């Protein structure tokens, strides 16, 4: 959600503007940016990973990572250049960790589908630490 859109909605919730005014402002904003409110969240550009300590957490570690989805796509393409011997070692290491995945199976035609599915990914874990993984 853009900063301007957020501000308009905050003004509406505070009662500074009415619904008609908010709608008019949002449509003006959409005209300026060339998007409609419906599709503003459809094409996320970044994968965001956030880890924050909860109130009961003894661990103060914080992680805030924002990775462009295009970079993930390009990185997966680069992974196809990893020599087969090294790919075998990677697969072995993943197998030891209980992950049954073979990166040599990922073909370029599958990459777009794989990354596009990330758009709908949302992980929210709240325990001692709060872990959030989402696209924005």
């Amino acid at each position, binding site marked *: 959600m853009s900063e301007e859109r957020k501000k308009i909605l905050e003004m509406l919730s505070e009662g500074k503007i009415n619904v008609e005014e908010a709608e008019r402002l949002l449509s003006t904003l959409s005209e300026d940016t060339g998007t409609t409110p419906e599709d503003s969240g459809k094409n996320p550009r970044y994968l965001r990973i956030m880890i924050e300590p909860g109130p009961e957490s003894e661990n103060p570690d914080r992680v805030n*990572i924002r990775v*462009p989805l295009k970079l993930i796509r390009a990185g997966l393409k*680069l992974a196809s250049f990893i020599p087969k011997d090294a790919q075998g070692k990677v697969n072995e290491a993943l197998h030891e960790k209980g992950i049954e995945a073979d990166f040599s199976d990922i073909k370029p035609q599958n990459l777009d589908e794989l990354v596009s599915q990330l758009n709908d990914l949302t992980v929210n874990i709240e325990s001692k630490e709060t872990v959030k993984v989402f696209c924005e």
Partner: protein
Amino acid sequence: MIPLTMRISVRKNTGRIFSLWLPLFLIWLVAIPVIILLSPLVLLMSLILWPTRKGKIILYFFPVFFSLVWCMSGLNIDIQTKSGTFYLNLL
């Protein structure tokens, strides 16, 4: 878009700080002409090595590598731990 600046900062709780702001656009100004000048050489190398598998790898590696660099704009890593902090931002 190609990243134009990079900011990297490492701070340890012992008091040691390493902070760097790198104007990547100045590096690209030098690197891009060099890459263009070297590209026929890379093409020639890949043609020579084509019978082995290396020629194909050389030919395909560079476009993929540059697309990776091109897409790095917007990357932001901010890690704060007990022992220190690490911050990387590419714009």
